[in-house]
């Protein structure tokens, strides 16, 4: 561990490399986390099927490349297809559990995630799939620091999507309806908002975000029917760290967590990367809880 720290002193460019890799990795998680924040905040559903949506977006993009279409077109296509799938799943399944106990919706989305895994496995097989974006690498500081361009696309995409989402929620009619529903579904209903439609749109938008993220994953990393779970877990963590209903916080938490875990992997070894993230989560929850408690004291 000390050897690894020593490396930073010997080769300071590594600091930048590790930081950049982490941030760019975190950006993709941040996109999936937007969706989770939305669904959680608006519908009070923790969407376990998040990671499978991401993988499905990746597979759709992979399918496009099989048809000779450039994978970058996969980003909007996957988002559009997933939007439709999201709406369909809402009317088929989620709608029946949305006002039930959270445990029920956990079970329902968990079931969906198994279903999607098996379907993807049936359609595309159990192989690891990737798509070539054809984008190259940027070199900084005389080849010592490298930045994959596709990861930059992912990061910029995450920022843009985040911005669009924030503006959409603030300004558009549907966005306002979504926020109203999040605050109080019953009151929103009394005021004439069709909460059923709002929920459907929310779930569709979430799936579309995941689809776009998946498209980036297949170009920058790889997809496989059974490796969706980490995306679910990371989005969950990012939302917890950012705080529910704090969309600008989501992108910051996503990038920050990405960087933190990459440093952990470098210094402690890759085997501690995930453990570190979870320890960090516990620390953040404890700190947040004490801060909140202090606030409550002042309120008295």
């Amino acid at each position: 561990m000390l050897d690894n720290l020593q490396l930073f002193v010997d080769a300071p460019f590594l600091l930048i490399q590790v930081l950049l890799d982490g941030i760019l990795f975190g950006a993709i998680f941040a996109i999936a986390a937007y969706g989770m924040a939305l669904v959680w905040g608006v519908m009070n559903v923790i969407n376990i099927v998040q990671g499978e949506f991401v993988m499905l977006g990746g597979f759709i993009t992979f399918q496009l490349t099989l048809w000779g279409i450039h994978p970058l077109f996969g980003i909007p296509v996957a988002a559009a297809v997933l939007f439709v799938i999201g709406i369909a799943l809402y009317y088929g399944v989620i709608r029946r559990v949305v006002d039930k106990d959270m445990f029920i919706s956990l079970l329902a989305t968990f079931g969906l995630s198994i279903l999607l895994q098996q379907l993807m496995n049936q359609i595309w097989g159990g192989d690891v799939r990737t798509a070539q974006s054809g984008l190259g690498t940027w070199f900084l500081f005389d080849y010592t620091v490298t930045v994959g361009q596709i990861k930059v696309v992912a990061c910029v995409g995450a920022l843009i999507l985040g911005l669009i989402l924030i503006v959409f929620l603030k300004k558009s009619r549907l966005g306002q309806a979504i926020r109203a529903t999040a605050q109080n579904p019953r009151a929103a209903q009394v005021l004439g908002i069709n909460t059923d439609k709002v929920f459907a749109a929310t779930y569709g938008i979430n799936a579309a975000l995941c689809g776009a993220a998946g498209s980036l994953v297949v170009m920058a990393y790889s997809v496989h029917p059974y490796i969706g779970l980490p995306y679910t877990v990371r989005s969950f963590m990012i939302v917890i760290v950012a705080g529910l209903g704090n969309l600008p916080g989501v992108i910051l938490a996503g990038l920050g967590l990405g960087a933190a875990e990459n440093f952990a992997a470098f210094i402690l070894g890759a085997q501690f990367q995930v453990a570190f993230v979870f320890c960090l989560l516990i620390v953040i929850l404890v700190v947040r809880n004490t801060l909140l408690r202090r606030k409550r004291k002042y309120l008295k």
Partner: protein
Amino acid sequence: MIRKLKQLGLATAALGLVLAGTADAKVEGDTVYLGSAISLTGKYSTNGEHTQRGYDLAVKLINEAGGIMVDGQDYMLDIIYYDDESTPARGAQLAERLINQDGVEFMLGPYSSGLTKAIAPVTEQYGVPMVEANGASLSLFTEGYQYLFAVLSTTEQYLASAVALAAEIAEAEGRDPSTLTLAAAFENDPFSQDIRNGVLADAEALGIKVVIDDQLPPELNDMAATLAKVKALKPDILVVSGHAKGATLAIRQMEEMRVDVPMLALTHCDSADIIGNFGEAAEYTLCASQWAPSLSYSDDLFGSAADFAATFEAEYGYAPPYQAAESAAAVMVFADAFERAGTFDKAAVRDALSETVMETFYGNIEFDETGKNIAKPMVLYQVQDGEYVVVAPTAWAASEVRWPTPPWADRQ
């Protein structure tokens, strides 16, 4: 009335026959049934299918050649399959079912070490011989199983040839192998860790210094941190194993991050299809493999290794991965043992299996007392001009190893 009773009697007798049939189905008429739980759905479905096709092709060819001669009578082979859904618990359950309900007394292995580990205790308990072709984990052969036989090389040998090759090259260059440095990145699952143990033991024996020893979490889809370290420490050899995902990530991220190492050795190159996916970037990569169509082994059934590849491709429309080749070899081992045992008695067949000495298109087969094949080495491919070419061990090398891998800056 009497007629009806007669009919009933006949029906009962027929039913009795059927029941007797299921209770003792290992040999029905002139057909011997082997059983196998295999991953036809779930995460191993691709390789499960390769395995099944290997079994089926061998059965087909053996039957076409007149079947097997046991005690002066010809028998045909057939296999009863069940889908284990890639889950060990299901695999063990199905093994029980094959043995207890279907009366199978000879088992062919499932796909993967994990499934084999789940099934081996069951076959052992019932004294049913199992010849397996896709469970390479060394830990399968430290349990003292008497009825388990494996035709493939075990995990600790997977990348040993790569380490040996690096030492060989160093010596040829007039360099002491102990001046070499090695970086290892292995997925944190039992199979990859077995390979890691083999590599580390070999490195230690040769005095090679291990500068990085990262264990990649199975759920991880990124190895940038490990590669950044490789870039800084510049080892002579980088060894990565993490199933198809590990191979995919290694090639993709090394190209992207311009990680220069003189020698890169991987496992699972073909299942990751690194040549098809990455083209140029896959060049120079060394890959461990159980078998290659270019090897000079041959037998009377399939002919040479290349003939097997041609037969397989004609039947299924794609070149056989080694998983299919070793599976076909497992069936041949059973056929050979039946003929030598001259009976379908489980214990006698088991004893015949343990005395197997065979030359097959897949390699030589001889089991040690733990049941693993000790007569066949692993081979090492190198990606050369868009093809997998065998470069080690030297006896089968079709071409010289290309070394060192030039830096990325000179490769485009």
